[in-house]
């Protein structure tokens, strides 16, 4: 399939190898450009396989399932790279910049794959899990139980509905960040920012009740 020539950055401060990549991917001759894209796809596929193997652990992902996931990750990463080629500024080697897209794709696909296998069928909001989520044993609960009461109050009274939903999903229900990204049709940064703000608000309540000092609380 012949693709339109991608938007390429003006080469500046590029190392020799990166400059070659940028030149090849911006080739006016379709056959030469396709050859460069095929070579890049090969690198991405190799990186996807290595990364999926590194992360797979107890998933026991193998055979056609492994091949499908890594092939899709390489394909999606190549599309992302083509669309973002104009953003490459030469602050890193081109290949390192390209690899980060396939690492992200593998991470998202593997996390969602694992979650589909292990997620409980009914996601209830069980606040009885909160002590366990933070490793509170019986002695901790006996001595510091009010801390958890204050956390619950802060979640219910101080957070916005979106911050509350994200806190409950990630902390209480253990939903992985990349799964929540897909469920909320959002992105990592927006969800992380919401959780960051939720943490700040919960901390502020604990500070107001004398359980923590104000050190390290970011300004609003």
């Amino acid at each position: 399939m012949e693709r339109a020539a991608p938007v390429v950055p003006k080469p500046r401060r590029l190392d020799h190898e990166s400059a070659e990549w940028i030149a090849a991917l911006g080739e006016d001759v379709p056959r030469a450009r396709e050859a460069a894209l095929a070579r890049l796809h090969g690198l991405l596929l190799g990186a996807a396989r290595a990364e999926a193997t590194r992360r797979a652990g107890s998933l026991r992902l193998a055979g056609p399932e492994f091949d499908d996931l890594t092939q899709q990750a390489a394909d999606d990463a190549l599309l992302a790279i083509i669309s973002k080629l104009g953003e490459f500024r030469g602050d890193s080697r081109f290949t390192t910049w390209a690899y980060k897209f396939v690492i992200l794709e593998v991470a998202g696909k593997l996390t969602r794959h694992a979650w589909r296998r292990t997620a409980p069928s009914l996601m209830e909001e069980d606040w009885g899990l909160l002590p366990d989520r933070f490793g509170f044993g019986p002695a901790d609960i006996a001595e510091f139980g009010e801390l958890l009461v204050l956390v619950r109050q802060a979640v219910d009274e101080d957070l916005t509905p979106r911050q509350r939903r994200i806190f409950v999903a990630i902390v209480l229900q253990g939903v992985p960040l990349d799964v929540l990204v897909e469920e909320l049709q959002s992105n990592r940064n927006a969800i992380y920012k919401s959780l960051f703000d939720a943490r700040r608000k919960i901390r502020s309540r604990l500070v107001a009740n004398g359980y923590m000092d104000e050190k390290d609380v970011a300004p609003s």
Partner: protein
Amino acid sequence: MTGPESLGRFLEIDPADVGCGDTFRLLAAYVDRQLECGDAEARYPGVAAHLRVCGPCSEDLRGLLAAAGLGS
């Protein structure tokens, strides 16, 4: 680590933390700097602050270090 200590760590807020978006934008430069000079934390303190608390991004860092390290 006790429960209260774990909760305290979760609630630690570092104003230097740049978040997932800027970390992803700078991750390749961070990795190359680390592989070439070993001082990425000092060069990119905001990214380093984020990587200390964000599990998914720190896992991406490990993967990218492995991928770029093999290719260098």
